[in-house]
Structures are given as structure tokens and as C-alpha cells.
């Protein structure tokens, strides 16, 4: 399982963001993505649970309430390994910057909060390269709850951990489930050396910190694939996933 703890050897750079729902990580990574593009870097963006491979199974499982913690975990792992194969590794091998909205630490926190064995999940994801920079956006539960509910009417069933039967009240269930995840994220943070950012701070202030850390990582890098002299149009255009920017 050494891959999870040791630096990878690809010429590209892997930067990931982690945090509970409503922590502001997606906002920060989309700001980062635009900035890197403007700086002339070629950036590839990938998002948790977005591959077409298992979408149907996950949707079906959620709708018909078939999912158990084990199948939930395995389906997300299949999604991850599929994206790893087609989206993450090739750009890293080609010397690009890969940005990932959620990475293996999401599984280590969420699946374990659902009762899956911590060592088993680590083993399942053991082929994943260790990121060059993993940012963890930490926010108190109430802040995340407030942010989510200001953007939409209702909490989602699984996001609130309603499948665990913690409480029949979605907000209460959310608090309990996400608190569990927060606690586990804290131990994952020290185990894997995630960099903690205060997700309740001012957005620009956070982004300033993020860019500083990213600059530091890129300084040590060999030549990365660039677009022509600071053009804002990367050749490989990732699918649009900027809807959360508006939320900020």
C-alpha cells in the first residue's frame, strides 16, 4: 500500500481538494483552475463520482434503496479507478496539472463513517497516486449546513446520511453523519498529511492561501505542459462544472 504514502513519479502535478459538503472546496478549486489557465498552464479537471461507468448503477441503487455501505463503497471505487485510468493518469504522464474535486480521502472518511473497514478501503484504493498537494477545507457543521440550504431547498438523502437511520430529521441526521465524517477527516489529515485551510474564512483570503501553496508545489516541478504564452484556452477543455461558483 506504499503508493498511498509516497510521492508519485509522473512529470505532472496532482492537486486535490477535500472537505464535507458545503465546505467551499469546489468554489476554491474552480477559482484555482481559472487562475492556472490564465497563468498558461494546461489543466485537467476531474470530479468525484462523475464517470459514466457506474452512474446508472448508483442512480438505480439510490432510487430503489438497494445500496449498502459495501456496495456504495465499491461503486465509488469503480468510478474512481475508471477516472484514474482515463482521466488522471494520462495527463499526469503527459506532464499536465490535474485538479481533482474530492479524492480517495473522501472514501476514507465517508465510507468509514458508514461502517466500512478503514484498512479495507485503503487497500481498495491502493493504486491511487499520492497527490502533490491535498487541501482540506475544514468548516463547522453549521456553516456547511447553512451554505447548502442557502443554495437549495432540501438536503439530499445520502448527503444527510439518511441511509444510516441516525435520525428521521434530515438536518439532525446531517449534523450527526457529517460530524462523524469531520472527526474521521481529522485523523485522515494527519495520516496523509493533508493541508488544512479554514473553510469559513473569506473566499479571497482562502484563494490567496491556495495559490501560495500551489505556487510552491509548481516551483519544484520540471517543465509542465503549457498553453501558448498565457492563453486562457487550454487545449483539453474539461467539462463545465462551475455551477458552485455562483453559490459563493
Amino acid at each position, binding site marked *: 500500500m506504499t503508493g498511498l504514502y509516497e510521492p508519485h513519479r509522473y512529470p505532472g502535478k496532482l492537486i486535490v481538494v477535500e472537505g464535507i459538503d458545503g465546505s467551499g472546496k469546489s468554489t476554491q478549486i474552480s477559482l484555482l483552475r481559472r487562475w492556472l489557465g490564465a497563468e498558461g498552464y494546461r489543466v485537467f479537471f476531474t470530479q468525484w463520482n462523475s464517470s459514466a461507468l457506474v452512474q446508472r448503477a448508483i442512480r438505480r441503487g439510490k432510487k430503489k434503496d438497494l445500496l449498502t455501505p459495501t456496495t456504495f463503497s465499491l461503486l465509488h471505487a*469503480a468510478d474512481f479507478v475508471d477516472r484514474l485510468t482515463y482521466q488522471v493518469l494520462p495527463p499526469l504522464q503527459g506532464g499536465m496539472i490535474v485538479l481533482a474535486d474530492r479524492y480517495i480521502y473522501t472514501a476514507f472518511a465517508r465510507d468509514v463513517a458508514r461502517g466500512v473497514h478503514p484498512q479495507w478501503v485503503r487497500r481498495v484504493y491502493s*493504486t491511487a497516486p499520492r497527490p502533490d498537494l491535498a487541501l482540506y477545507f475544514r468548516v463547522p457543521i453549521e456553516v456547511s449546513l447553512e451554505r447548502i440550504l442557502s443554495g437549495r431547498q432540501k438536503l439530499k438523502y445520502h448527503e444527510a446520511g439518511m441511509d444510516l437511520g441516525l435520525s428521521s430529521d434530515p438536518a439532525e441526521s446531517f449534523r450527526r453523519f457529517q460530524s462523524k465524517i469531520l472527526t474521521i477527516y481529522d485523523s485522515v489529515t494527519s495520516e496523509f498529511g493533508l493541508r488544512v485551510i479554514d473553510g469559513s474564512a473569506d473566499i479571497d483570503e482562502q484563494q490567496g492561501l491556495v495559490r501560495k501553496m500551489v505556487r510552491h508545489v509548481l516551483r519544484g516541478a520540471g517543465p509542465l505542459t503549457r498553453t501558448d504564452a498565457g492563453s486562457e484556452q487550454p487545449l483539453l477543455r474539461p467539462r463545465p462544472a462551475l455551477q458552485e461558483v455562483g453559490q459563493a
Partner: protein
Amino acid sequence: MIEGTDGVGRSTQIEQLKPWLEVEGYGVVSTRWARSELLQETIDEAKAGHRLNASTFSLLYAADLADRLENEIIPALQAGLVVLADRYMYTALARDRIMGADPAWSRDLFGFALVPDLVLYLKIGLDALIPRVLEGKGMSYWESGMHLALGKDIFDSFRKYQRRLIHELNSLAVEFNFTSLDAKRPIEVVQGHLREHIGRFLRSRKKAQQSDIVTTVEQPSESSETVDALVTQAAK
């Protein structure tokens, strides 16, 4: 649990075992590899789209098995039914090995799976398998290992892929202590052998349970000995 390579006749045998067990007085449930409510369509689609590699293949199969275990197999076992499984994780372990996945990783991945009470392995050589498959539904893309580009045509590829698969299953048979049956024989003969093994296993289990209850009440000191005696007797 019935294991065996593609086209060896597993489903035919299971179809015939089911009514027999029911006549013998057992409740029976059968379950098939890659046929869970959750994943059947996804696996079929992914296979059609040629998108899978060894790891994603295994992960989908693991999710399929976990779904069937938690939603079908374990509840049936808890209700005291006999569960007949057409393939189990050994199929994935064998295929993974050929596709180049880390065997230790695949074994850990399937660490959640229950160990079957009895694994009946329909063992066949490549030469006997080929005519059977040709007469049956023919050679398919995946069963011929076309994804591995092993041969110059489907027949050649089938031979190479199945030879490896049979080899892997044979070594798994040793590692996990399968009961091997000669699957070259006519269907009825194989069916007879399967019934013999299953009948013997179920009888010994029944007697062991009964004698356990009886002996713990009447002669607690000799219980384990009595059970052993009965099992041996049943095995004769």
C-alpha cells in the same frame, strides 16, 4: 457453489439441481454471477462498451457479489435455505490474474465474501471444452479473451485464453480446496455426481446438527465424538 470455466455447463447443472433439492425437501435459491439487481445492466453495458480494465472489472464484480450477498444470499441462508451460486469470487480471481491485476489486491478486495460451504468445480480440459462451446452458444468476445488480443482470430484467442483460465482455476481449486468433478462426462453423469456430493454434505450437516442437540442433552461428554462418527458414516 458451482465453479467452472465458460461453457462447461454450470447453468444447465444448476437448473437440474434445483428441482431435485426441492423434492428432497430443501428450500432452494439460486444466484448468478454478474446478475445482481444493482449491477447487471452496468456490467453488460460496460462489457459492450469495452471500457473495462482488470481493476474496474473486479470492482464491478465485487459490487455485484456484495449486492447479491447482502440482498439475496445472506437473508436466504439466515432463513435456512440452500443457496446455489453459479460462480463466485474465484471467477474474478482467475480472470484478474490473466488480465494482470495484482493477485493480493484482488484477494483483499473480495475479503468481504462469505466462504462457501462447498465448492463444486466442474473441471474440464480445453479439448473437451471447445466442441461443447461450439455446439452451444458459440465463442463470445469476452469468453475468448479478445480484449487481450492473444490470438490471430477468435478461435485461436479462445484456445489461448481458456487454456490460461483453466490453468488459473485449477490452481485456485488447490488453494481453496474445491471438490473437483470431471465435467467431460455426459450431463446426466455429472448431475449424478453433483447430487451425490451435495446430498452427502447436506445429510452430514443435518445429522451433525441433530446429534449435537441430542447429545448435548443426553450425553454431553461424548458429543463431539458422536458428531465425528456420524459425519464419517455419512461420508461412506
